């Protein structure tokens, strides 16, 4: 027979004013297995806890029910006190007679409150009788992190983790790290040059002894769980032996073939077939673009191998699969720009002088195709009138995306300034819907563009863009003056919407993290857990989560890193033991649990006979991945799975005690 003690808390008058706590305590004494009951003024006080400990020892209790406030308030307090008294903490349960009884039933005769408290406490006692002692679980932890994506968010995260002494692997799809930030000219609101602040970080990262940089590589497969991920990375063949290459650039110079440059955004800008994406690339090791290289297409040329001094060119190089074990993953895969050819009214793709914002960045960049001079693509003339159109695809639920891309207001203002600084007599127009410039020194920046740099802001949408006599005509509405306007421009710049990276959903499926309808990765809680995913051990940084600017991305990179660091600062992982458990004798391997589990925590496990052959399969719970939701339990037809701490037995005991 159980030896249960029941404490009914008065909570000063909070409970006692509508519940006769003494009567509740007396009623509980009648229940078989209850050997001690008492009501007390403040159970959570130090004195109350001491009383609890003393009673546990004196009466050799094997279970405690505290009828008091919500378990969300003091369950931990009382379980700790029990533990201190030598009782398993999971043999302590709380009956919520304050938030869910005394505070919501204001009957001053105490009749209602007393009756309900008696019921609630009785249900809890019966439940407690079925509670098994549980032990927290310790899981070993691999203190090495993987960062996916080498843009500014990934770089920041990797650097922070490495700085605190843990090893980091950074995987980048492109031949160089740097991401979109490397393409930008100057950054708002300080107008410092993007590459000047980025490249030192890129170099620092590549030189860091704790960092292993895998460029031109992609994550192929992720298995395991927090603390113990197994990751397969495909290192694509660069056709250049990294250890031998000195980065002299001779091969690039001598290569006679060209292909479109991804880095320079617009078609027509070429790079060599053996290339680094941009001059400051890290690592400064070229790769051969096999899709365009005649050596691979028809076994001709081979000049790069001939001119390479250290003999680093290797045409026979194969993709390499690397397997790594890591304890935590930071996802920082960044964004793409929405293709805007489908917005026919803006003429992108049809009219040469209609360009994207990112292309304008390259035009304005000192290292860009024009050396920083603003020249329009069609004929190389300096444009004297430029129209910037904001919200191209953003905030357009019908044809684009309903969300705000967040950075366009700021960078369009920046573009007007960059333009004005380079073309003094030029005139910039901006069509906008609203100006969203929330952020430190952001609104001042936009005001400066308008008031000091003379950009004309027109609140309204553009209805059509077409060519006439070498000009680009922009027709639109100015809703503030209520008129239609027609602007004869030389160039039009579209602030296109930010969308998730191509392949974002596939990567999310590989990682087992969730994403929204667009493909942006979901944070665990939009306010309180902004860089965690619902999969323990996987964190987010930067625009893979949603549109954000450079300061936000960097802050997120650091935040994700700090989560990884705090995870690694422990000896091993300690987990609450509220976990699913399979009774292998009953499991018939229907796999309903396997498909129901949101965390992929159910594993298919073979049971082997003496001769080593597989006798049958059973489900097994991965304790590292299980979060204790219990979906599998309700899904199991054969009742082979149960959830520790919320077993069927416990729930039925509570239901049985209803009357």
């Amino acid at each position: 027979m159980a030896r249960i003690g029941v404490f009914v808390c008065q909570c000063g008058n909070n409970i006692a004013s509508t519940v006769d706590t003494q009567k509740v305590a007396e009623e509980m004494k009648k229940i078989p297995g209850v050997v001690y009951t008492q009501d007390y003024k403040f159970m959570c006080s130090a004195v109350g806890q001491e009383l609890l400990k003393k009673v546990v020892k004196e009466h050799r209790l094997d279970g405690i029910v505290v009828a008091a406030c919500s378990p969300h308030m003091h369950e931990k307090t009382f379980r700790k006190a029990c533990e201190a008294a030598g009782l398993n903490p999971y043999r302590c349960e709380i009956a919520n007679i304050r938030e869910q009884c005394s505070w919501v039933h204001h009957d001053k005769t105490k009749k209602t409150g007393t009756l309900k408290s008696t019921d609630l406490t009785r249900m809890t006692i019966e439940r407690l009788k079925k509670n098994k002692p549980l032990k927290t679980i310790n899981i070993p932890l691999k203190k090495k992190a993987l960062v996916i994506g080498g843009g500014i968010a990934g770089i920041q995260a990797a650097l922070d983790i490495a700085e605190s002494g843990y090893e980091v692997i950074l995987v980048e799809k492109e031949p160089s790290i740097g991401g979109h930030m490397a393409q930008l000219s100057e950054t708002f609101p300080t107008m410092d040059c993007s590459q000047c602040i980025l490249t030192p970080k890129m170099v620092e990262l590549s030189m860091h002894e704790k960092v292993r940089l895998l460029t031109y590589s992609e994550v192929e497969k992720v298995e395991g769980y927090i603390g113990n991920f197994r990751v397969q990375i495909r290192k694509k063949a660069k056709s250049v032996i990294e250890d031998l290459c000195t980065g002299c650039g001779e091969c690039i110079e001598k290569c006679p073939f060209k292909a479109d440059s991804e880095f320079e955004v617009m078609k027509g800008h070429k790079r060599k077939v053996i290339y680094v994406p941009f001059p400051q690339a890290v690592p400064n090791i070229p790769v051969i673009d096999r899709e365009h290289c005649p050596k691979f297409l028809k076994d001709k040329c081979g000049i790069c191998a001939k001119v390479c001094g250290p003999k680093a060119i290797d045409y026979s190089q194969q993709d390499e699969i690397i397997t790594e074990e890591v304890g935590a993953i930071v996802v920082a895969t960044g964004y793409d720009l929405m293709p805007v050819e489908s917005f026919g009214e803006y003429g992108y793709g049809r009219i040469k002088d209609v360009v994207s914002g990112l292309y304008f960045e390259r035009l304005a960049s000192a290292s860009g195709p024009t050396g920083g001079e603003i020249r329009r693509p069609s004929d190389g003339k300096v444009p004297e009138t430029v129209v910037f159109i904001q919200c191209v695809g953003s905030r357009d639920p019908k044809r684009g995306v309903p969300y705000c891309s967040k950075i366009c207001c700021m960078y369009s203002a920046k573009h007007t300034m960059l333009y004005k600084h380079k073309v003094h007599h030029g005139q910039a127009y901006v069509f906008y819907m609203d100006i969203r410039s929330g952020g430190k020194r952001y609104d001042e920046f936009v005001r400066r563009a308008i008031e000091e740099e003379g950009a004309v802001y027109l609140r309204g949408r553009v209805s059509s863009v077409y060519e006439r006599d070498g000009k680009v005509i922009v027709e639109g509405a100015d809703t503030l003056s209520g008129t239609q306007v027609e602007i004869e421009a030389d160039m039009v710049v579209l602030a296109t919407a930010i969308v998730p990276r191509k392949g974002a959903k596939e990567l999310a499926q590989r990682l087992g993290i969730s994403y929204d309808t667009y493909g942006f990765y979901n944070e665990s809680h939009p306010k309180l857990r902004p860089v965690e995913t619902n999969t323990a051990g996987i964190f987010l940084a930067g625009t893979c989560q949603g549109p954000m600017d450079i300061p936000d991305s960097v802050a997120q990179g650091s935040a994700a890193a700090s989560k990884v660091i705090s995870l690694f600062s422990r000896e091993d992982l300690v987990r609450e033991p509220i976990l699913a458990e399979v009774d292998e004798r009953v499991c018939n391997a229907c796999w309903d649990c396997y498909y129901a589990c949101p965390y992929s925590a159910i594993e298919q496990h073979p049971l082997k006979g003496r001769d080593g052959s597989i006798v049958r399969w059973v489900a097994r719970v991965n304790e590292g991945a299980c979060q204790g939701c219990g979906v599998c339990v309700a899904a199991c037809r054969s009742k082979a799975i149960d959830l520790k701490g919320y077993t069927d037995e416990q729930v039925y005991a509570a239901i049985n005690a209803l009357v």
Partner: protein
Amino acid sequence: MEEKGWEPRIVAFVCNWCTYAGADLAGTSRLEYRPEVRIIKLPCTGRIDPLFIIKAFEKGADGVLVSGCHPGDCHYTSGNYHARRRWIVFRELLKFAGIDLRRVHFSWVSASEALKWRDLINEVIETVRSAGPFEAYRRLNP
């Protein structure tokens, strides 16, 4: 309660993260609602086995309420969707078995919806009251 005549008995199966916290908030806000409800806390509505509901009826409940996080807000990503799917089928089954659907209720109450919780409980109790005591079911299981 006996003096005042019959009052219905409701069992509410709620998830730990949203509805339980919402019910706590109703308390913290000192809202008042009918006392005939008994809450059973589970980690997630996805944990709720339909047999819990059958058992509750058998043990004297006149009505049952299941409530969890709003769609998309589940602490465990998708547990409430499992609950919803299961519920739709189970409800049809109850209907087929001839059980008065005024006795079974499903809702989403978030951790901030104390007012919704109060109104929901009062409403559920009223609806169940209109259905009367569930003697018919209990007689099946003497």
